[in-house]
């Protein structure tokens, strides 16, 4: 069934969805409108609890036992889905509409070979033979850029890495050439560089196959890179709809404005231009106000216009296709609407507090198998940390950046005493602590070194009240002695993290994720620690909550002059928060320096790739495009020579494979582990730059391959402007994507024009 150009693939008209639970009816989504044309990619953006996944499931007509569409209609290819019988729906799902989920490991059946799962799709929907289905599956695996398809077909899902699994899931979704592809946060569970590869893939397939896409995410940068249009959702309603350029550059809803103010874009500085969190809290579904749902948190709320009735979506005057759910959008001065946070002086640093000298941590794996006994290699080593060497000063924030398997969590464990280092020194105020497990440490030392954990849901004991857990820390380190003093101190700590005092008696399950994380922070600072390790403290939180928590951390650091070791994989947050950055890969320190030195050239090739992989939600930013091929090597089997040589786009030659690179000091404090000579390093172009040419900022729409003529003319214009700036990127891309040489030429040039803009 070919899609006609004017019939929308999907149309949602005033859709309302409710869940029926023990507590009654919960209206999850209210008055939702969406229109997806053939070949278009629409992004749905919102925080948790806004209803985006509910919308996706409703489109699939897969609401489960207690969900139902209580209003409006959903039309697929012009037909109302309510009129379709279960047999018809079953026919559509998987062949006309496909879905890709967040966790690839949960989407694949662990007991079935990949081959069986892939061939199942066309065999069921089209009734073709197994041999034919196998051939199609191999073709699709090539389209999703998985090398060695026969090996992948014969593996079980757990034998593949996360990125490969997600590509297999995308392949499964594409096998029957669907008209609509739903992606529900497909890259959230993946590493940054792997995510960049998958995002690149998604952009490519939608161009090649002409599939319409609905891309659900909370990451505005990703939406900017992949979608043409965007819907912003808040508390079950769509509050703004338009093309990406319209919404990003000329937003018309206060919530969208608030969202953008909470994201650490390049240019934000935590002292002079801090992020401004949105005040207030997300309303629960049955506590939504009568009127504008965002009203209680909005700076422009007016009783007459914004209250009393359901605010409808209206077209923005004079702009086609841009709709907003706000009755005062014309009255708001959008230029003045950029609220400024409280400006502060930058913090001055003190003497070095933490010194790590050539620290090494190897895990021993004892192999008791017969094969190991025969070969004599009974003990193998996982080289988690190799030669870590850096310094952190008082009141400084040192960020450790890297992907999974790079050894940052291991370093945190050694620092906290949960593990012992196998070599080198870790000095805290001059005392060696790397070889001291927690049991052997003095209470004074323990209290001066605390940690904030990543997962807010597991960081508090569910059986004890919040107050008692903070009080335990206060009591244990003797900060206060008798119960009344302890209670006073606990209340002070709650005030410091901006939580209401009555939380002292609450159980953790009555708190939200952001509130739990704040309790975790109060607990870490309760003993007056001099060094606080923050292990990805905000990655599990919503964007607006992240802004609040990072604000609290900065404030506490300013007051108590604590050194913060901030471990993260999110470079945007790192750039916002950190003073010094250490980039790790496979246990080695690849680059270290101040934030400015790291985020501007000269770069280590890995840092360069990391920076280009981070999605940035700013249309005025031009980013170089570097996609790493291959997978992260296993720490048990690190590559010879430089650990990055298997994926490095700037590999010089055999020297990278045989010799460990030297540490080059480009400027005092800025060190790089690389074989490249200084001249090449200093000649690198910046990865992120602001666009100079206004015309180039137009975000081109994605068109199906049948409309080659139009794109050919567009790409004819582009290379002339692109050539001067594009050369180094193209060169690196060419060497990195050697395997994908078989792509259609139109696709490649189109990508050039896209990334340039």
């Amino acid at each position: 069934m070919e899609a006609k150009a004017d019939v929308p693939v999907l149309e949602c008209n005033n859709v309302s969805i409710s869940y029926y639970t023990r507590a009654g009816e919960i209206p999850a989504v209210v008055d939702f409108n969406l229109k997806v044309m053939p070949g278009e990619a629409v992004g749905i953006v919102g925080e948790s609890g806004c209803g985006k996944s509910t919308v996706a499931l409703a489109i699939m007509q897969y609401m489960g036992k207690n969900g139902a569409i209580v209003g409006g209609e959903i039309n697929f290819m012009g037909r109302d889905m309510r009129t379709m019988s279960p047999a018809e729906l079953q026919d559509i799902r998987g062949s006309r509409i496909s879905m890709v989920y967040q966790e690839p490991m949960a989407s694949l059946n662990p007991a079935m070979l990949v081959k069986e799962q892939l061939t199942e799709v066309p065999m069921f929907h089209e009734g073709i033979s197994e041999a034919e289905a196998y051939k199609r599956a191999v073709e699709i695996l090539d389209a999703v850029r998985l090398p060695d398809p026969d090996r992948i077909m014969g593996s079980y899902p757990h034998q593949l890495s996360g990125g490969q699994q997600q590509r297999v899931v995308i392949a499964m979704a594409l096998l029957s050439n669907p008209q609509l592809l739903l992606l529900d946060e497909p890259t959230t569970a993946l590493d940054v560089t792997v995510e960049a590869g998958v995002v690149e893939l998604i952009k490519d397939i939608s161009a090649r196959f002409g599939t319409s896409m609905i891309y659900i995410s909370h990451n505005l940068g990703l939406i900017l890179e992949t979608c043409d249009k965007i819907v912003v959702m808040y508390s079950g309603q769509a509050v703004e709809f338009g093309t990406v350029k319209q919404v990003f550059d000329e937003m018309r809803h206060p919530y969208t404005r608030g969202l953008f103010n909470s994201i650490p874009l390049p240019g934000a500085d935590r002292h002079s231009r801090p992020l401004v969190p949105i005040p207030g809290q997300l309303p629960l579904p049955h506590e939504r106000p009568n009127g504008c749902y965002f009203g209680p948190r909005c700076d422009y709320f007016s009783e007459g216009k914004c209250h009393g009735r359901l605010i409808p979506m209206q077209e923005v005057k004079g702009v086609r296709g841009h709709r907003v759910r706000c009755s005062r959008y014309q009255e708001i001065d959008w230029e003045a609407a950029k609220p400024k946070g409280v400006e502060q002086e930058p913090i001055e640093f003190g003497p070095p507090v933490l010194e790590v000298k050539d620290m090494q941590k190897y895990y021993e794996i004892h192999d008791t198998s017969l094969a190991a006994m025969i070969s004599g290699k009974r003990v193998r080593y996982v080289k988690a940390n190799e030669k870590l060497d850096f310094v952190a000063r008082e009141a400084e924030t040192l960020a450790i950046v890297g992907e999974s398997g790079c050894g940052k969590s291991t370093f945190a464990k050694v620092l906290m005493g949960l593990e012992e280092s196998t070599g080198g020194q870790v000095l805290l105020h001059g005392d060696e602590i790397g070889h001291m497990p927690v049991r052997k440490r003095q209470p004074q030392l323990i209290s001066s070194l605390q940690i904030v954990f990543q997962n807010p849901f597991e960081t508090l004991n569910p059986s004890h009240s919040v107050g008692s857990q903070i009080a335990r820390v206060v009591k244990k380190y003797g900060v206060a002695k008798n119960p009344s003093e302890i209670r006073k101190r606990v209340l002070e700590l709650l005030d410091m993290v901006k939580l209401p005092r009555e939380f002292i008696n609450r159980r953790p399950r009555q708190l939200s994720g952001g509130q739990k994380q704040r309790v975790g922070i109060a607990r870490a600072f309760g003993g007056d620690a001099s060094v606080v390790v923050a292990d990805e403290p905000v990655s599990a939180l919503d964007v607006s909550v992240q802004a609040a928590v990072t604000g609290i951390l900065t404030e506490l650091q300013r007051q108590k002059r604590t050194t913060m070791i901030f471990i993260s994989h999110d470079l945007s947050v790192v750039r916002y928060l950190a003073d010094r950055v250490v980039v790790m890969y496979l246990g080695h320190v690849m680059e270290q320096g101040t934030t400015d030195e790291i985020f501007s050239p000269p770069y280590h090739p890995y840092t360069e790739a990391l920076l280009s992989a981070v999605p940035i939600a700013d249309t005025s930013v031009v980013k170089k495009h570097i996609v790493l091929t291959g997978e992260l090597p296993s720490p048990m089997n690190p590559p010879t020579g430089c650990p990055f040589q298997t994926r490095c786009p700037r590999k010089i030659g055999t020297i990278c494979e045989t010799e460990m690179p030297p540490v080059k000091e480009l400027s005092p404090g800025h060190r790089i582990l690389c074989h490249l000579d200084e001249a090449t390093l200093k000649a690198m172009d910046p990865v992120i730059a602001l666009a100079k040419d206004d015309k180039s900022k137009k975000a081109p729409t994605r068109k199906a391959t049948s409309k080659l003529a139009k794109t050919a003319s567009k790409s004819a214009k582009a290379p002339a402007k692109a050539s001067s700036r594009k050369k180094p990127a193209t060169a690196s891309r060419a060497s990195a994507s050697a395997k994908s040489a078989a792509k259609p030429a139109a696709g490649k040039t189109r990508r050039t024009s896209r990334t340039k803009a």
Partner: protein
Amino acid sequence: MTETTAEGTPAPKPAGFLKQLGRAILLMRESRIGMFGGFLVLFWVFVAVFVPLFPLQDPLAITRNAVNMPMFSVDHNQVFHILGTDDRGRDLLSRLLWGSRLVLFWSCAATFVAYIVGMLLGVMAGYRGGWWDEVISFIGNVLLSFPLLVLYLVILTTFGANSPAGQWLHHAFGIGPVVVAGVMIIVAVMFGTAPQVARIVRGLVLDLKTRDYIAAAEVRGESPIYIMLVELLPNARGPLIVDACLRLGYVAITIALLGFLGLGLPPPDPDWGKMINEARAWGSMGMNAMLWPAFAISTLVLGLNLLADGIREISLRD
């Protein structure tokens, strides 16, 4: 791992214990099976607590010539026996209702002790691992591999009220034979039950100890005993509640069984198992006296099982 969360509005204040209990009871309404089971259990608990207030015959009063009388009969002393009498002429109804005290008390005591021991061993094996785990699991496996009845027989005949060890306890500490018998039952049940509880708790702890709050406690420098008792055990409650209900039922049957085999509480206490045993010897004449205690045990254990089912059903639903 990267789920995002929203800021929720403040929740209402935590309710007191009674309110929570009331809420739990209201929740039970969702499962009809659980309600029925709960009703049965509550019936026997009510009986056991208030039986001294009931207008019943003396359960120990032997009436000659009124032996094995059928239901609704009147004996030569003009005493109306609703359920009849047993082989010594004692009123069945009153023995049944007084017997509920014994069964419930000793079942609860035995289960409680077994649970304490099982939980402590389980949390040691799970958290400390290493040699602790090896030794405790090994001993547990050995005990579990014994046929349960044989285990009880061995323990009770060696240490029961009539054995030399039991006699020594009686003479040395002046403990009456009933208490000795009771304590030995507790010990026997403990050997049979604690390994299973330990295994469950160990499994729960193996999962719980990977959580961040345990790492937070270790990083604070807390002692292992603190972590095990304060941080880990309170969180192992969930599956244990369902298991406790079921196990109470098994233990009740076990005590009845031991009574039936003559290994339980000494006469003349109205132990249901013993009542069945005594009536058995009379064949068809003792039918009445045999069926009523059997019925009592069945309803109690059925009630506990159904209650456990209901709790499990509700906890799995949303």
